[in-house]
């Protein structure tokens, strides 16, 4: 065990000297994984379970992660897809194009950089990043991420299955989303009186696939980290399928006739099962309370984010 420990840590230390490109070019896992930044070897995620073990496809309770290290940084695992909604180029309506242009994300290749110009095969949404201080991501002040963005973040989600609903408890942001399974009908977008950051969602089983339809999202949330917009007309369909013992596959389709001229299909995502005791801190197991707390975030923005993006000294204030 000791020798194995030394070997693993040595490999990890050695690997940080490899370039991202070298890592990305490494051989992938068996099967055709969705695109995502890869690991050099192994399954690409902490492997605790036999994928071929028998399972009940409708038993999805547990902690699932798209994170290559399980949780806490490390990015998305090789077969989990990336943190963008899709590699497919969206087709905007004029209103959608205007909304897209108004959003200023900080993920992706730097706007107008040589790097951005060298990748015309990527939609411009992935090539227009600006420093967060100059952006307008509402998550930059800890507003809820909403969907589908929350499910794209590389951290675990606990699926809590109750008789009449399924709760998605996201570790990052400690967000909670309710999927109602009691047979209620989803309201039409025009019938939504009060939009929600986490939307209105209903679920049903279609064979062994959990189909979740949702709408009524606050328009200030983004579809993903690259700042793709949605309107109050967005209807999102998620199809979750437990494809083996430790993997759930997620397929999504976004329909939003106000902003998108045709339904926009998401990249297939995956997440993997974690033991309930995997996430630990302070001798305590279970999801971390990984809140985006305004008290932390606003101070970070004051002393780090804003000066870094503007070159100006931190604004007056202080940590409380």
């Amino acid at each position: 065990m000791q020798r194995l420990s030394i070997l693993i840590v040595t490999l990890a230390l050695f690997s940080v000297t490899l370039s991202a490109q070298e890592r990305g070019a490494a051989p992938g896992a068996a099967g055709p994984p969705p695109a995502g930044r890869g690991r050099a070897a192994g399954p690409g995620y902490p492997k605790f379970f036999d994928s071929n073990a028998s399972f009940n496809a409708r038993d999805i309770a547990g902690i699932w992660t798209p994170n290559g290290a399980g949780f806490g940084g490390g990015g998305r695992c090789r077969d989990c897809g990336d943190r963008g909604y899709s590699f497919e180029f969206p087709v905007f309506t004029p209103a959608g194009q205007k909304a897209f242009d108004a959003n200023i994300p900080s993920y992706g290749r730097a706007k107008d950089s040589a790097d951005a110009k060298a990748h015309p095969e990527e939609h411009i949404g992935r090539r227009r990043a600006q420093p967060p201080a100059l952006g307008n991501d509402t998550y930059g002040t800890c507003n809820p991420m909403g969907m589908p963005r929350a499910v794209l973040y590389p951290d675990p989600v606990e699926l809590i299955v109750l008789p009449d609903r399924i709760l998605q408890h996201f570790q990052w942001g400690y967000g909670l989303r309710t999927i109602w399974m009691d047979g209620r009908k989803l309201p039409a977008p025009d019938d939504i009186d009060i939009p929600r950051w986490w939307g209105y969602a209903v679920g049903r089983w279609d064979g062994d696939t959990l189909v979740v339809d949702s709408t009524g999202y606050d328009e200030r949330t983004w579809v993903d980290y690259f700042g793709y917009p949605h309107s109050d007309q967005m209807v999102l369909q998620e199809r979750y399928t437990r494809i083996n013992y430790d993997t759930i596959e997620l397929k999504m389709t976004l329909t939003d006739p106000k902003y998108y001229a045709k339904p926009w299909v998401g990249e297939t995502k995956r997440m993997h099962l974690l033991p309930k005791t995997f996430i630990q801190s302070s001798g305590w197991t279970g999801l971390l309370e990984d809140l985006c707390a305004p008290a932390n975030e606003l101070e970070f923005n004051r002393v780090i984010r804003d000066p870094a993006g503007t070159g100006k000294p931190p604004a007056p204030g202080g940590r409380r």
Partner: protein
Amino acid sequence: MTTRRKQTAVLIGLAMAMWAPPTARAHHGSFISYDREKQWTAEATVTEFRYINPHVQLFFDVKDKQGKVTHYNGEMLPNPAQLIASGWSRKRAATALAAGTVVTVTALPAKAGGNVVLVTRVVNEKGEELLGAGPLPANPQAPPGAKP
């Protein structure tokens, strides 16, 4: 699962956490604010360390050859969750980076100028790397979803 297999899995998880490219660690995309072509390394004295979301922060002083002291606000890419995953508890990290500790800091300046930097590496006087930060990959600006 046996205890030994659990330990092995945790070690693999730890190794994979250390593998992560900086852009994948940051949830703000704040890496883009810094100039990776102007990385510098200097001896520094820690004035404050914050083990806090959204990213841990290191505040420090650097004295130049003329004795002039410049204060820096340093962003670090890990957040507490990542440090927990890689074995850097709050107590361990705070002890290693207590105010007054002399360290060698490697940092990227902000593109916009000023005294905010991205701290990419911290080494103590014994030569030990702290918080598991490591050298930057060749192309950290590539989005996490970049295809090979």
